[in-house]
């Protein structure tokens, strides 16, 4: 036991004395969170709006002030003709334009129905769709307010509701993804590099010749990185709550338990890599190229797996982060409990035990 403890202590010393490792361990998650949180967001804020108001009545004025008050829109100009409107688009001043037809209020009163035209610059189709969704939300909200005032009780309105993320914020979607990505990368890379380093420096020779049980070598190699990764997870969670205003809806203990299982799985992959890699550099290359792409593409946080062709869909099943992503989303964003994620947990547990067994079996008790 003292053997194991002193080995683990030694491992921590390696980590804290190597600035590059430290930077990697704690810099990577921070940078990822900040990047995804602030720079690479697909939320669209402060879209420039041009208004062409033929109506000039109460309803159009009310709507304009609502639009202007929304954080997604800034009204930058009012134009009087369609020609002017077009030139605003041409010059790139406006991303979106709202046209209120003449007699809007009158039409709404008589027909209980009126149309407002929305013109969007669709040269960037994704943001155009997102913007028009935001806009629709505002109109729907306005409609909703008016229903209560309306003398006619029977007016049916389809009202889309964005579950779990009603404001379509970017953070809820990517935070679970970043957690999965960071844990996967850090764990596989650190564990494989730290074992290969001992081989490269020749210290593995002495360790193997010692009476120290090889299983203990593995345990003491994995333990520090497990502790550090859990610590990392907590940092990411704290950053998500404080910086990105994300609330953790489910049980934190369940979240940490599932993460520990995922961390162990990733460490086992690292262990497996270390059995084949000869140099630290190749260990790092294998973990980076072998882990980064599948995790990014096949986890489901960048591209929905439902839309993928069948072979990729099948392939995604063996990517551990795919299951872990579902778990975090369910627990963190939806606040669901154990009963909703037991299947995914079971799959992770299976992968974890399988990988650990294989990697322990492949761990060499001799050179070569």
């Amino acid at each position: 036991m003292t053997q194991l403890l002193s080995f683990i202590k030694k491992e921590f010393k390696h980590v804290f004395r190597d600035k590059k490792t430290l930077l990697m361990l704690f810099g990577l998650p921070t940078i990822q969170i900040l990047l995804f949180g602030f720079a690479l967001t697909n939320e669209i804020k402060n879209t420039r709006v041009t208004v062409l108001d033929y109506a000039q009545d109460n309803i159009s004025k009310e709507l304009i002030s609502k639009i202007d008050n929304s954080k997604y829109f800034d009204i930058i100009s009012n134009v009087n003709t369609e020609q002017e409107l077009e030139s605003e688009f041409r010059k790139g001043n406006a991303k979106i334009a709202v046209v209120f037809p003449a007699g809007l209020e009158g039409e709404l009163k008589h027909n209980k129905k009126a149309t407002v035209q929305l013109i969007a610059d669709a040269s960037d189709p994704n943001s155009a769709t997102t913007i028009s969704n935001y806009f629709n939300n505002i109109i729907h909200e306005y409609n909703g307010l008016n229903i209560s005032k309306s003398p006619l009780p029977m007016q049916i309105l389809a009202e889309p509701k964005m579950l779990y993320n009603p404001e379509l914020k970017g953070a809820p979607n990517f935070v679970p993804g970043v957690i999965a990505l960071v844990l996967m990368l850090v764990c596989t890379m650190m564990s494989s590099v730290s074992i290969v380093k001992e081989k490269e420096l020749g210290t593995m020779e002495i360790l193997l010749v010692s009476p120290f049980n090889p299983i203990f070598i593995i345990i003491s190699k994995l333990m520090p990185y497990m502790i550090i990764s859990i610590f990392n997870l907590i940092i990411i969670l704290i950053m998500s709550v404080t910086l990105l205003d994300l609330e953790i809806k489910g049980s934190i203990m369940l979240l940490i338990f599932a993460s520990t299982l995922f961390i162990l799985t990733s460490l086992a992959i690292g262990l497996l890599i270390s059995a084949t890699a000869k140099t630290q550099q190749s260990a790092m290359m294998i973990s980076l190229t072998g882990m980064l792409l599948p995790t990014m593409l096949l986890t489901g946080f960048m591209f929905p797996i439902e839309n993928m062709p069948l072979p990729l869909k099948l392939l995604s099943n063996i990517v551990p982060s795919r299951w872990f992503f579902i778990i975090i989303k369910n627990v963190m964003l939806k606040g669901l409990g154990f009963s909703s994620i037991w299947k995914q947990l079971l799959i992770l547990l299976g992968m974890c035990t399988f990988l650990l067994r294989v990697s322990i079996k492949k761990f060499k008790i001799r050179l070569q």
Partner: protein
Amino acid sequence: MMIVTEQLKKVYGKEKIVAVDNVNLSVDKGEIFGLIGPDGAGKSSIFRMLTTLLIPDGGSATVNGFDIVKDYKKIRHCIGYMPGRFSLYQDLTIEENLQFFATVFNTTVSENYHLIKDIYCQIEPFKDRRAGKLSGGMKQKLALCCALIHKPEVLFLDEPTTGVDVVSRKEFWDMLKNLKQMGLTILVSTPYMNEAALCDRIALIQSGKILSVNTPEKLVNNYGETLYTVTGGNMYKLLNLLRSYEGTDSCFAFGNSLHLTLKYQTKKDTVVAYLQEEGFKDAAIQETIPGIEDCFIKLLKTN
């Protein structure tokens, strides 16, 4: 017998390069046994097989009575190993390295301090310095301490003095003598022939084959020929001239002189006369006592 090998063999790679070729050795308890040979002779491969790091491709060996393949766990309890390359943690201090290896081997520094005291006291003033920042000699001393801290019965030292200055090298061999007094068996390898004389017995090895096993004295006494040193003039031209001379048996460069053996009938004076005739006015020939290196070269020639 502490170490016994029988027809030990190691082959590498697809090309079937034979690194160790049917080696038979036996090392007594409490003896300093030297494996002497140039780089690539197969010394490290023998060490790695005996320390259970490699499985032999043929033959068998025992260390302290345990088979190196079957009983590898038992062997790992009773040996100390110092690999050829400095293999300690560069980012840990001297003290941390020593303590780590003590605990890994399930002991404490204080328990076996008497074994390493003489060596450790020399590096103790720098105990808070990281191992990566030590000089070559200090690194060797630390590595020896780490290999000794668990009180092994056999010590395997693979080229412990390579890359170490002359003074530290001498100190190192003095330490080995002391360890021998304490009853340790030491198997040591070195490419330096002058260190061979410090061993109790030596095995000369070349291309994986053992050329001879003997005590250094007997090896030298068995040289069986008169050896001369030749000096004077341009060494390179002198060497070529002597090699083409009909009375020469062997001639090779040795430091800043030449070592020469002559064919049975040839007399020393005839050679001097011949050299002067060829324009080497300062040429001088003296009888000398052969060293290990001379024996080694002779053995290489006859094999």
